[in-house]
């Protein structure tokens, strides 16, 4: 077991250690230094890309969470003809290969002559995050006592009020976890973003991708180290949210 953890973490640890290395060439240890973090701060291109990433991630996570939560609730609460189809649809979006989703969205955007950039990126990210929110919230709803809804409606709440004042507060941890999930999915995506964004709107993973391909600058290490640290924080936060009230 320890070997698997070693395999998974050794490269990341080495990367983080070398982000503090005071050497222009990342071979060999030349002493501890924060210079790459300093250089990162003055690299406006990278900072812009980071800001773009965070903007897209938070906006797409918010939209995907609203839509995904509604989808989960619709599936839990209502019976309708196309329910099976709808469920299968969500599942297929989760399973479909990223690259197929990327090129198909690229063609859609070209067909409707939507300039690749912020909007296309946002639409794509909402689409691939939505089903993940839906399944996260649905699994929380699955354990629900249906009598709660009946009680609310006996007390005069309509469908919207029941959802807003009874169900939503109860599933809130799952909704927040869904948001964090979409947020990280958006930050992590390489393949789909690669196809749907243009040179005018660069996001972090794609900036890293081109930097890695062009030749490694140690400033990339610092950036990657920060992103790993951010992921750790988000994962811990979402786990705490999901554990709550279990």
């Amino acid at each position, binding site marked *: 077991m320890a070997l*698997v953890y070693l395999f*998974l973490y050794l490269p990341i640890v080495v990367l983080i250690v070398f982000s503090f290395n005071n050497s222009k060439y990342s071979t060999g240890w030349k002493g501890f230094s924060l210079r790459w973090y300093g250089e990162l701060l003055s690299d406006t291109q990278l900072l812009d890309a980071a800001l773009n990433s965070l903007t897209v991630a938070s906006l797409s996570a918010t939209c995907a969470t609203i839509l995904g939560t509604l989808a989960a609730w619709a599936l839990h609460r209502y019976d309708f003809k196309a329910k099976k189809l709808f*469920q299968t649809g969500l599942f*297929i979006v989760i399973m479909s290969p990223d690259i197929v989703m990327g*090129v198909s969205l690229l*063609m859609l955007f070209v067909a409707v002559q939507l300039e690749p950039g912020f909007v296309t990126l946002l*639409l794509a990210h909402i689409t691939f995050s939505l089903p993940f929110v839906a399944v996260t919230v649905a699994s929380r709803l699955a354990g629900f006592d249906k009598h709660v809804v009946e009680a609310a409606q006996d007390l005069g709440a309509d469908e919207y009020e029941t959802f807003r004042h009874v169900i939503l507060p109860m599933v809130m941890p799952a909704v927040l976890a869904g948001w964090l999930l979409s947020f990280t999915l958006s930050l*992590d995506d390489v393949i789909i973003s690669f196809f749907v964004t243009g040179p005018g709107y660069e996001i972090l993973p794609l900036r890293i991708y081109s930097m890695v391909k062009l030749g490694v600058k140690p400033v990339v290490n610092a950036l990657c180290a920060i992103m790993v640290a951010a992921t750790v924080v988000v994962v811990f936060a979402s786990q705490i949210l999901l554990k709550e009230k279990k």
Partner: protein
Amino acid sequence: MTRPSFFKVAAIGGTAAWLAVFALLPFLLILVVSFLARDPSSFVAPSFSLEGYAGIGDGAFLRIFLDSLAWAATTAAACLLLGYPFAYGLARLRTKRKNLFLLLIIIPFWTNSLIRTYALVFILKAQGLLNTALLGLGLVDQPLEILYTDTAVLVGLIYTLLPFMILPLYSSIEKLDPRLLEAAKDLGAGRFRAFFAVSLPLTWPGILAGTMLTFLPALGMFYVADVLGGAKSLLIGNFIKNQFLTARDWPTGSGASVVLTGIMILLLLFYGGSGKGAPRKPEDIGA
């Protein structure tokens, strides 16, 4: 229209419409384009053609395609061999730290896979950690050339996808009632017999889910081959990417995407037909 039914219509309709426009429609577009002719000036010409698939029947593509399937299958198999004993051990842990150990598997799962791929460069490169260790131990005389070879791509794929195998395996092993194994032992089954007759069939959904979650992405992760690999068109993903962005041959790129989707559908059908149904709950796929 009364308010309750309005909310119902909005909840179902809104999300269904979103998926129809941004998931179903684009896919139909790919399907249509794959049957159109190529046009250098505007990507596709509006006339029916099988060119998109002709390129696929062609020997060069067929090789990439079969190679790519072999790579993905090797990746999935390696992840299974590494992941099963690990997931088994994790699921059977009797300690308070279990959740922490589980969380440590989830973190790489959500860490940017491009960054994780890039981190491997530090280990695999000529003066990297692996070679330093091997030289230091006197196991090799000169640095092994691993980076920019097919081996590096394989290591990269296994490395990025391993958590996707472990999580579904873990959740299905966790559900396995240990009393069933005790019963098997009471009835005289040895460890191997108990494993093959009890554990394996009962954790089969996890094995299938994990295999799908590693096999399918392995076909498409073009950046792993780009960052770690030597050969350019190793995976179907690289091929599709090149058709769209370099060769500007949309029909062929679309044809390859349709084939890839076909593989996914076959796998899903196989999964659905294996008795347990498609994973409907997030735990089943480890999400």
